[in-house]
């Protein structure tokens, strides 16, 4: 176990001991105990950054976990995981700091729960990004789903929190399950390994396997649900019920990026298929557009940010799709085409984390200080909360893609990439490719619009103190530190993008496109503000102009239907689906579990007879041997006839006495048959048991009414008749076949041994008795145990009568 394993496990260990701190130091906010951990981890992970440039040599540490299932806890540190590790711990530090001021240490709120969940989440995220083994990745993946649900439902007394938590869990976990199946397929394709790196090394042969496509789809199901891609994005807006630090952390910077991570990580494998390109690009673009349009319709600030996140995730996803084209060109024509896409993806990932994080925190501050996030109530906060306003402005501008902030740069790269895509000489892109920039542009317009709207409706206009329950003022500095740091990064990365180029972006790109450069070579990542007046810039100008127009006319359109559907219509699918799931389950279950013994017997009878007869005929096993069947004495016929007459009369006679007497007669006649068939002990036992049974039944008649009349309905009677005859037929035919088999085969039953040895070895003449007490004494011992238990049970049943509810 390496030190890096502890980086992953440290948050879990901390989670275990944290409640101790919570209970021991009630007066100190628990967050303070926690804060050093992500910071230290951040710094430690940062030591792996190749500051000198020149790419990065991946580092692997492995410990076996469940080697017999191919599961090893292998930590793999390369550019991609490094990037994510830094995001997780870096944003994590800021979020923890922010949360200390955001979440009060109230007496009745289990604060330690919050931090335990948060630590679990942090550890799980680190696990996801640093695991080379797909199953370990999966383990952590599900843990992120779980801990994020718990965080969403932190205020679990609220109905909406519970709803959001359940939704996020169901959607992300179902994606996870699909992904697991995909992983299993990859394991099979790759020849029994779960190591991603080993798979990448044989990706060329893997994609030849027909199973690769289903595996890809399943893995994408996991990635898309996690990263809120259309149509799975619906959980994200509802997840906004989480405390805002959670949203800032999970729903902008980290968890939703896990899907992005997975796609990036598996691109070297799946990217070799052309479906990969199309699926990612299409889903990405649809998500991008859908998210940005939906964001405009929101009135809740966090709702806007949630849809904005959806949209931005779509953007990154589509970029990764475009980047995968590199694998089809074997990396020729590097700097102009797909490489831009990869670069844009990584860069935007970072940028999004910074500006969206800061925006969430700012919104949290507004919520915290005003008590509302509804843009219809807000307004004029520019002067009241100047710091928050500034932070927000920076974030919004970056989000809208305005210079000189980092968002502008990555959006320009995105435009470049989308324009490039249209010129690819593959996948029919030359004819269909134009839709990519079109979508990109439309989405960007709406992005601009909602950024504007947020700005306008929150900070401009008149300040209406009546709308708030509290006295509104600027937030305390503690709350402001984290967003300020992030806002500064937005500016810093905007102004000096190339400080990330060789340290972060290039190593990450190497992971996505491993053939991009051979190790040691430096790839050229260079990001400029000014490219001259090119198509991208024109597109941006168009976005701004058109966006402004929409943003200014929009308030007039609020009455239109477009804005009255704040909730995503796709939610209806989820909600009805869930309702119907329960309703239909109830219907199906009620249809089976009728509570009627008759129905149960009917169902089972049909199954038994059906399966039994099917088997009998399938093996052509039905046989009847007439050998030695002649010469049955007439008295046997008579006895059997009488026996059957009594038996067949049973269903028809009414009256319990008559039934009982018939039953007694049957019992006596069976005993007689035992005598005819040379079984004296059986005859004796049968007679005795029969008599005691009759006495018992007579005794219990006192507690029973006359038998209920059977219903005469033809349908139910014939159903019963048919099923019982079917079961009887099955048993009879099989018995006949066994008999026929027996007649034909040479079977030496083990009982020959008993015949030979009863006297000599067991000292008894009565073989049956010797078998009972000696050869098979255990059976006998147990049979009387059954009897004893039954009798004690009768006593218990009669004498111990409880009402229910006395105990559990």
């Amino acid at each position, binding site marked *: 176990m390496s030190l890096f394993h502890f980086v992953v496990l440290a948050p879990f260990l901390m989670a275990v001991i944290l409640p101790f701190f919570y209970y021991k130091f009630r007066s100190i906010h628990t967050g303070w105990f926690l804060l050093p951990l992500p910071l230290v981890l951040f710094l430690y992970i940062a030591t792996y950054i190749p500051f000198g440039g020149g790419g990065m040599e991946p580092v692997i540490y492995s410990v076996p976990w469940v080697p017999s299932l191919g599961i090893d806890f292998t930590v793999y540190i390369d550019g991609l995981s490094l990037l994510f590790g830094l995001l997780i711990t870096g944003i994590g530090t800021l979020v923890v700091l922010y949360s200390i001021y955001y979440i009060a240490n109230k007496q009745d709120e289990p604060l330690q729960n919050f931090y335990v969940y948060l630590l679990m989440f942090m550890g799980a995220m680190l696990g996801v990004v640093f695991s080379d083994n797909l199953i370990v990745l999966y383990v952590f993946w599900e843990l992120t789903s779980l801990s994020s649900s718990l965080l969403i439902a932190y205020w679990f007394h609220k109905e909406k929190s519970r709803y959001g938590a359940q939704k996020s869990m169901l959607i992300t976990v179902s994606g996870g399950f699909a992904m697991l199946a995909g992983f299993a397929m990859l394991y099979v394709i790759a020849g029994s390994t779960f190591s991603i790196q080993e798979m990448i090394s044989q990706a060329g042969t893997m994609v030849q396997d027909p199973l690769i496509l289903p595996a890809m789809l399943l893995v994408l199901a996991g990635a898309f649900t996690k990263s809120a891609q259309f149509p799975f994005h619906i959980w994200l807006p509802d997840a906004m019920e989480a405390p805002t630090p959670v949203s800032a952390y999970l729903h902008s910077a980290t968890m939703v990026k896990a899907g992005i991570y997975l796609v990036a990580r598996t691109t070297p494998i799946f990217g070799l298929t052309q479906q990969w390109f199309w699926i990612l690009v299409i889903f990405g673009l649809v998500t991008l557009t859908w998210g940005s349009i939906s964001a405009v319709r929101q009135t809740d600030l966090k709702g806007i940010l949630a849809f904005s996140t959806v949209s931005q995730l779509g953007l990154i996803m589509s970029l990764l799709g475009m980047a995968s084209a590199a694998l089809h060109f074997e990396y020729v024509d590097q700097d102009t085409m797909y490489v831009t896409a990869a670069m844009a993806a990584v860069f935007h990932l970072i940028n999004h984390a910074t500006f969206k994080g800061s925006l969430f925190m700012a919104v949290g501050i507004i919520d915290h200080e005003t008590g509302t996030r509804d843009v219809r109530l807000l307004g004029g906060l520019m002067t009241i909360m100047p710091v928050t306003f500034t932070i927000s402005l920076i974030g919004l501008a970056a989000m809208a893609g305005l210079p000189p902030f980092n968002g502008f740069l990555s959006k320009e790269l995105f435009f470049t990439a989308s324009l490039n895509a249209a010129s690819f000489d593959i996948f029919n892109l030359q004819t269909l490719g134009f839709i990519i920039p079109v979508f990109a542009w439309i989405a960007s317009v709406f992005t601009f619009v909602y950024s504007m709207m947020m700005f306008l409706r929150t900070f401009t206009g008149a300040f209406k103190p009546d709308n708030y329950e509290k006295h509104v003022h600027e937030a305390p500095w503690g709350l402001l530190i984290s967003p300020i740091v992030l806002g500064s990064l937005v500016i810093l990365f905007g102004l000096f993008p190339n400080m990330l180029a060789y340290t972060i972006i290039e190593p990450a790109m190497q992971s996505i496109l491993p053939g991009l450069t051979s190790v040691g070579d430096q790839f050229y990542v260079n990001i400029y503000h000014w490219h001259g007046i090119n198509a991208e810039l024109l597109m941006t100008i168009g976005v701004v102009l058109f966006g402004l127009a929409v943003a200014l006319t929009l308030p007039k359109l609020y009455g239109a239907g477009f804005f009255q559907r704040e909730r995503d219509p796709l939610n209806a699918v989820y909600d009805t689906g869930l309702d119907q799931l329960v309703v239909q389950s109830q219907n199906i279950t009620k249809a089976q579990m009728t509570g009627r013994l008759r129905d149960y017997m009917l169902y089972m009878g049909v199954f038994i007879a059906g399966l039994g007869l099917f088997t009998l005929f399938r093996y052509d096993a039905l046989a009847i041997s007439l050998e030695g069947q002649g010469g049955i004495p007439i008295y046997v016929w008579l006895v059997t006839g009488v026996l059957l007459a009594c*038996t067949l009369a049973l*269903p028809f006679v009414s009256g319990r006495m008559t039934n009982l007497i018939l039953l007694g007669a049957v019992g006596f006649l069976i005993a007689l048959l035992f005598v005819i068939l040379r079984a004296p002990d059986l005859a004796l036992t049968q007679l005795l*048991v029969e008599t005691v049974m009759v006495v018992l039944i007579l005794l219990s008649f006192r507690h*029973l*009414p006359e038998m*209920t009349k059977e219903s005469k309905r033809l349908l139910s009677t014939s159903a019963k008749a048919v099923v*019982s005859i079917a079961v009887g037929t099955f048993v*009879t035919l099989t018995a006949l076949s066994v008999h026929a088999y027996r007649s034909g085969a040479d079977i030496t039953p083990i009982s020959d041994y008993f015949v030979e040895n009863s*006297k000599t070895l067991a000292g008894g003449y009565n073989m049956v008795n010797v078998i009972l007490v000696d050869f098979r004494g255990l059976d006998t011992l147990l049979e009387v145990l059954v*009897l004893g238990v039954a009798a004690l049970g009768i006593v218990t049943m009669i004498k111990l009568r409880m009402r229910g509810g006395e105990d559990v």
Partner: protein
Amino acid sequence: MEILMILTGGIIITVAVYLLMTRSILRVVFGIIMLSHGVHLLILTLAGLEEGAPPLLTENADAYTDPLPQALILTAIVISFGVTAFLLVLAYQTNKAHDSDDLEELRGNADE
């Protein structure tokens, strides 16, 4: 003889299964009793009804019928006796608790 006995056993089992599907709580108990009769007959028959003396060595016969199925049936008779007695009491206690011996009425609520 075997075929006759198999058919007898089969018919008894058929009737037993039918009785298990009836409404009267007591008739079902009777069905259980009949079921065991049929089954015992089958065990005895399928082990072979070769002509031979009853399985007691005092008979000094050349051949004996198979003692093992007889021992098995004996065990089975005893067990089914215990179980049936228990079921019988269960049936009447159920009738007492619900004031009904009609399994149609003993369905319980749908949502249970």
